[in-house]
């Protein structure tokens, strides 16, 4: 295991501390638990707070999207492991501006059970909460069971929309509605080429024979829908993009935002090779690409692979994407 770390148990606390030291103008810890982080100016009176959270190892995901026009706070779990209900509650209290708090995070059992517990605890403190789950991974469940899909890179769009809605003063119900709407129109699929090594166990997150790729892999290395020989970048882009276009029912005249996301070790150069073909694939079908994001937005430590996400746009969604936002890892406008 070749990692630039100290004791594996300290890994999460130490990188969070690094983030806090590097960006004190943007984020802070409200109490003494490093696993709770909020935007520097939280709470914003009269505005809906947005709390996200989940396992570590996915930077910029989750903690990277805490900032103006994005999430208000985050509860930070161990690598690939949920934060505790206690930490979620602390984040909730720190961002509550009196207009309620949205819980927005990826659909993973551990996170759901802990956030649900935090909902109950927040209710006791008199803070109304609502929950929207990122569930964009089309490989994890067929369309009929889309509510059971896991959440991956496409949650970026939901963060952006929810953050913009909260920032402009929408009520909790309105923020929930626009966020659900964005989640409903988001689809992601990825491929994995090589696993990450888990810092605590020293074991790979999955096994994959040489020369093979896993199609539909999750951001914890969860197996996907099938395994096959490694294809060319163009074949991969075609297969992934066509799965998304089918899932969202896109066609001539549709407008989309595209996110080509690296899972950690895959070079930016390769993401642009993928983007190139995705662009052509969509353009050939008369689908207009209005916003583009290429880079690392949701990773799995040093896993090799990539995912493609599409958000079908209408004017309302586009306006939310284009609203200004600023966090240590994301910037718009």
């Amino acid at each position: 295991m070749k990692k630039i770390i100290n004791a594996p148990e300290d890994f999460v606390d130490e990188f969070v501390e690094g983030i806090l030291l590097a960006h004190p103008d943007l984020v802070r810890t409200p109490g003494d638990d490093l696993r709770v982080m909020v935007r520097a100016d939280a709470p914003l009176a009269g505005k809906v707070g947005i709390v996200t959270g989940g396992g570590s190892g996915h930077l910029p995901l989750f903690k990277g999207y805490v900032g103006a026009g994005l999430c208000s706070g985050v509860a930070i779990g161990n690598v690939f492991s949920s934060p505790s209900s206690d930490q979620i509650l602390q984040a909730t209290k720190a961002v509550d501006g009196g207009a309620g708090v949205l819980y927005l995070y990826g659909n993973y059992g551990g996170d759901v059970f802990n956030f649900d517990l935090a909902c109950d605890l927040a209710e006791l403190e008199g803070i109304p909460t609502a929950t929207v789950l990122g569930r964009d991974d089309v490989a994890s469940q067929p369309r009929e069971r889309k509510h059971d899909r896991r959440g991956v890179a496409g949650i970026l769009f939901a963060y952006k929309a929810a953050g913009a809605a909260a920032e402009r003063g929408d009520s909790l119900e309105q923020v929930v509605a626009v966020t659900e709407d964005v989640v409903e129109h988001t689809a992601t699929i990825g491929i994995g080429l090589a696993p990450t090594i888990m810092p605590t166990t020293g074991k790979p997150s999955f096994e994959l024979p040489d020369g093979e790729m896993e199609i539909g892999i999750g951001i914890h290395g969860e197996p996907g829908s099938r395994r096959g020989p490694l294809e060319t970048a163009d074949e991969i882009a075609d297969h992934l993009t066509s799965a998304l276009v089918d899932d969202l029912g896109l066609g001539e005249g549709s407008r989309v935002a595209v996110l080509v996301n690296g899972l950690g070790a895959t070079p930016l150069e390769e993401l642009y090779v993928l983007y190139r073909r995705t662009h052509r694939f969509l353009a050939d079908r008369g689908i207009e690409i209005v916003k583009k994001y290429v880079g690392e937005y949701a990773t799995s430590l040093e896993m090799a692979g990539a995912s493609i996400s599409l958000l079908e746009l209408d004017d309302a969604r586009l306006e939310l994407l284009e609203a200004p936002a600023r966090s240590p890892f994301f910037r718009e406008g």
Partner: protein
Amino acid sequence: MRGIELNQHIRASLALLIESADELRDLDQALGDGDLGITVTAGSRAVITELEQLGDAATPTEIARTAAKAFANANPSTMAALVAGALLSGSRTWEGKDEIGLPEASAFVAAAAASIAHRGKTEVGDKTILDGIVAAADALASAGDPAEGMTSACDAAARAVRETTELQSRRGRASWLQERSIGLPDPGATAFWRFLEAWAVVSARPH
């Protein structure tokens, strides 16, 4: 069994349970994300530490609630949250009791099973920890005395774990594997069975 013995028994059983950490990690590695070894190790250690702090006068309910909170926060995960919720539910059946016998144990496990079924939106046959707990709850409910209860609960859990091998996971990370989840026993159910085994080993020790 009074609070002070219950406390000791739990701690001794968890100390033994930790020895299964590698097995649980490997099973969870194959079917999920491999962190079950950590959940069980960190959770058990946290419970042991907290229970050591509790006074000898702590009631069974207090003991179960202390264990629940410690387990929930040590390595938060599916198992941690579900088990913590189950312990809280179980603890409610002990309210006002100082002495835990077979009926109390049986009620506790039944309440725990109901909690997991409800919170996990799951039923027997979904290949989860619930399969093991329900089997143990049923065995305890029909046992004539504590010793028989212990043995039959252990046997029932072992059988339930074996039976999960041929099932397809329908809940949690393992469900994403679809047909590929068939062929290995459920990690969570296995963890529960190993805990019962540890409990039985401690029971058999000279007091």
